[in-house]
C-alpha cells in the first residue's frame, strides 16, 4: 500500500445468510473489529454496517503482508419481510451475527377449516 495514502479503504466482509424458523440470520466475518468500531444503521430499507479496525500490522514495517488492509463496509437492502423493530446484533470473536426478525404479516399462517 502506498505509504502516503492515509485514507482508509473499505471492503466487504465474507457473509453468510440463512433462514431460521422465524428469523433471518446474517453472519459477517470481521476479524479485528470490536464493539467500539462497529456501527450498524437501519435507514428505511437500507441496512448499513461499518466495522472499523486498527490493525497494528497495517502501520508497522511488514515483512509479510497478506491481510488486506482497510475497514469493512456493507450495505444491504431490506424488503417487507423484515421487521425493522426486531433486529438484534451480536459481536463475538470477530464475527458479527445479525438476527433479522420476519414480520408477522409474511409468516405462513395455518387456517383452520371449520366443518359445520
Amino acid at each position, binding site marked *: 500500500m502506498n505509504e502516503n495514502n492515509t485514507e482508509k*479503504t*473499505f*471492503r*466487504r*466482509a*465474507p*457473509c*453468510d*445468510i*440463512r*433462514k*431460521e424458523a422465524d428469523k*433471518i*440470520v446474517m*453472519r459477517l*466475518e*470481521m*476479524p*479485528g*473489529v*470490536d464493539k467500539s468500531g462497529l456501527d450498524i444503521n437501519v435507514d428505511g430499507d437500507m441496512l448499513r454496517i461499518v466495522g472499523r479496525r486498527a*490493525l*497494528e*500490522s497495517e502501520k*508497522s*514495517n*511488514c*515483512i*509479510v*503482508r*497478506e*491481510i*488486506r488492509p482497510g475497514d469493512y463496509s456493507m450495505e444491504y437492502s431490506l424488503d417487507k419481510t423484515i421487521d425493522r423493530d426486531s433486529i438484534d446484533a451480536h*459481536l463475538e*470473536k*470477530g*464475527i458479527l451475527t445479525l438476527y433479522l426478525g420476519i414480520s408477522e404479516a409474511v409468516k405462513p399462517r395455518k387456517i383452520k377449516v371449520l366443518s359445520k
Partner: protein
Amino acid sequence: MDLMKRNTRYLPSSWNNLRSLQKEINSLFDDDFFPASTGLFDRTYSPAVDVAENPSEYVVTCELPGLSESDLDVQVAENVLTIKGEKKDSSENQNDRWYKKESWFGSFQRTIPMPSGVDGEKIQAELESGILRVTLPKKEEAKTKQISVKVK
C-alpha cells in the same frame, strides 16, 4: 489473393486482443467487490498472515474470526512457527435454508520460518476479536541498539 501486411515490429494483432483479455481478467481480481479470502483462487482454507518487525520483536498477526483458544494450536519447533487449527462450520442445523455462504470452514495450517535471533522461550500468543497475535521477542544480542555518540 489478398496480401496481409506483415508487422515485424509488433506481435500480430490477435495477441493484443489476448493481452487486453488478460488485463480485463486481472482487473476483475483486483476489484474489491470480491470479499477477501474467499475468492476462487484466493487462499481458501488458509488464513491470512502478516509478519511485522520492530526493534525489539517480530509480530505475527493472523486473521481467525470465530476461533476460540481450544480450536487453535500454536507450536514452535526449531526455527519454524506453526499455527494449526480448525475453523468450525457455523451452521448447527443442516436443514436451514441458505441464501448465501461466503465463509469457509475446515482445518488449516500455516508454517512460518522464524528469523534468526528470536528468543524461543519468550514467545507469546494472544487471541482477541478474531485476530491472533504472536510476539517473537528478539534475543538481546539481536536487538538493534542505539548508541549515542558523545561529542567531545
